[in-house]
């Protein structure tokens, strides 16, 4: 069964975002990959070949493009894909310990899925949240920041019960009309653009 066989409207919508030319069709590669990955958690070789036929290229090129990004997976991922930032700031703040703890308690290695199908882990490069290191991203839902031993245990306990806690910083970050970022709990962060200089703009 092919994935896109019964989704012609979706495929047409994706293609409509690009010029109607052979090169334009090729540009639709990334949203198609994203579509498959969101639905199945990873992109299998069969799906690569299917996308290649759709956009008029070869499976080799599809794999070449998708292997450039660590955010596409060629192996199945768990229901909760835990991504640990391992770049310098997080490493200094203890991401190695966090990683070791996750690998030991969940009993998974990169590329594996825990026996209950819930967890998979991955080390990723800088997620740009150095001020709140060490940090963790679950799927593409958002950032869990300052993840110390206690917070990690609480998150894992909630995930085991399939109650995913709200991220500290949702992705994409919501920005209010006045240009303020808002955390998941409604607290505004940062400085308002319009509020610069004490509101005397």
């Amino acid at each position, binding site marked *: 069964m092919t994935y896109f066989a019964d989704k012609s409207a979706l495929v047409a919508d994706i293609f409509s975002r690009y010029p109607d030319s052979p090169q334009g069709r090729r540009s639709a590669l990334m949203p198609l990959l994203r579509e498959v990955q969101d639905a199945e958690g990873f992109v299998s070789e069969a799906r*690569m070949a299917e996308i290649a036929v759709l956009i008029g*290229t*070869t499976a*080799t090129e599809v*794999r*070449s493009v998708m*292997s450039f990004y660590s955010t596409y997976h060629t192996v199945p991922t768990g229901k909760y894909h835990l991504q640990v930032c391992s770049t310098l700031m997080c490493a200094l703040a203890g991401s190695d310990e966090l990683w070791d703890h996750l690998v030991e308690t969940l009993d998974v290695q990169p590329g594996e899925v825990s026996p209950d199908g819930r967890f998979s882990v991955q080390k990723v490069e800088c997620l740009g949240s150095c001020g709140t290191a060490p940090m963790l991203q679950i799927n593409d839902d958002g950032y869990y920041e300052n993840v110390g031993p206690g917070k990690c245990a609480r998150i894992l306990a909630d995930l085991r019960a399939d109650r995913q806690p709200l991220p500290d910083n949702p992705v994409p970050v919501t920005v209010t009309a006045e240009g303020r970022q808002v955390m998941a709990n409604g607290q505004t962060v940062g400085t308002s653009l319009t509020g610069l200089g004490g509101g005397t703009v």
Partner: protein
Amino acid sequence: MKVTVDGHELDLPAGTSAIDAVFGAGGDVPYFCAHPYLSPVGACRMCLVESGSPRKNPDGSFVMEGEGDAAKPKIFWFPKPMASCTMQATEGMHIRTAKTSEVVAKAQAGMMEFTLLNHPLDCPTCDKGGACELQDRAFEYGYGASRFGFDRRHADKHYPLSDFVILDQERCIHCKRCVRYFEEVPGQEVLDFIERGGHTFIDTEEGGLPLGFQGNITDICPVGALLDNVARFRGRNWEYDHTPTTCTLCSVGCSITADARNGRLERVVARENRDVNEAWICDAGRFGHPFASEERLTTPLIRNEDGQLVPATWDEAITAINRGLAGLSLADLGLFTGSEATLEEGAALEALADVLQTRHVDHSPRQAVDIAPTATLTDVAQADFVAVIGADLGEEAPVLELRILEMLRGGLLPPEFAHGTAIADLRLVERPARQPERLAVIGAESRLWEHAGHRISANGRDALARLTRPDTDALKAVGEALTKAERPVLVLGADALNGASGSFAATLSDLAGRTGAKVMAIPAGPNSRGLSALNLVPRAGGLGLDRLSEVPAAFISRLNPGLRARGFTVVHDTHLTATAQLADVVLPAVTNYEKRGTTVNLEGRLLPLNPAAIQAGEAADLIRTLTALAEALGVKAPVRGLRGAQTLLASRLGLKLDSLPAGGVIHRLPRAHTAPAQPHTPRLWTERMVRRDQDWVDRIADLTQGGWTLPVAPTAPQPGGDD
């Protein structure tokens, strides 16, 4: 355009790349990723040069340097060395190479150190040793030492991309030549970089490389990452006897180098010929050669009283022929040859047939009509519309297919300089835009279909007739495109030419005349075009090869119809074929890799053959064999050697064949002789050329179990020694 390289000023055409400017000035720049027939991308960062240009003031005058008469435009140098393969030389540009610039020398040495950072030093075992550009350039431009003491990256070694190409991912330096080759030349994007970043490697997701033109990547790989599996571990570059010659498996006549070692043909690589194959050859030509050194006939065989073929000397064979043909009228002896025979051999055969006054003369395969070519391969590449009618180019003339694909991407031929083909032609781009509407394929489905804008399924036999009187909209569209095109070319294959009747040539010349199209008809055999210029067809009342079993007695050279003549049969062949097993006397023949002579390709280009050093025992070419046959018949052979044949041909063709240029020369051959012929199905890979994997497994088993013997020449008494 004036460009100054290392202080020498030279005049170059506009559009020249900086790397060609340096080579044009007689200088040298190391490079790995640039290739004359591929787009320049600047991937290897090795061809660094310093460059600078004059700059103009707002009023249009040059910014000057110096006082009074000594003033000259000031050169503004780029702050860093630049990759010369992707940089266009411009008016007044100054270029400094490593010869005059320490900055460049240091940058190149540093880049070399960086490239060697992860390249394994496999040189003692790598098959590219002696032909490795990285090795040579590291010697010429490197520091000779590395500051990186840590372990190298490790990846898959001996990773088979296909039966014929082995990849060593560790050795790859990411020059991207193979990736670009597959994208740009055969239009099959089957290779690409995977896992971009520190662990990039080359791989395919298609489960292997497509057979057809995959072998060319082993030629262009600048290191030992992609190796020809047929030639792997068979010899080192300096051990081979390199023979520049012409491939005669099909009628394209690609320039090749035949590499022999210890008397065995071990490797065939492509040789550049801008007019014919550019720098590419097909897989059959590259990988199909082992038959030339396997199970060869090395002595004559004669049939003894028990009916067995037993080895004999040439003298015994001549005696046997003499006895077997005793009492036969010489005019009843049929003379037949295969179409890969050289022009000289054909002339010798014709001369002997004239002396014997035999009517049963033929060469095979051949076509019943002869369509003189008016298009060259360069014309095909530069056409603006090509119609391929009734041809499967993959079987008939694979490299013609590459020239058609070249036409689809604009027919850009890299310019030629005194130092050869432009190393970086800046007009060539990655992922070139193709114009499939310029190609029509009419006939059975073939590999070319997926590139064609007009695909018309038709019976090849009446395809041409239907094109002249189009009965469908698709055919009408092709007819209109042909008329509109300024430089159209018609390519005719076996399906169209097989059943050709007398009106075929008239229909064709009418269509060509009406549309202004040039014509390229693919001959049935590698040298059919040359041999049909000689009178090697059944003469009045004679029997052709298709009626071999009715001929009273026959001499059959390098043909395998699986039949014998009614009476005494002599077979001259390289291997003990089915026909040879039926013969009374078998004479050993040489392959075309071992011949000196001339072959004529599908454009009518005369190309030279040179003999490679292959051990073939007492095998002889057709000229010498015919001399022996004449001796057995008791007549004086009219042509007894190559020079005699060339003298004879020189008077007929008005061309000296002993001094042909290496790239061949197009020459108008005299009127062709034709006669009714049997339809034939072109097959490029003959049974003998396909490598039998069982042998391969056996050989490896031998190697591992220590039972392997060195392939040395058998000890035979050397004639005329001092002792």
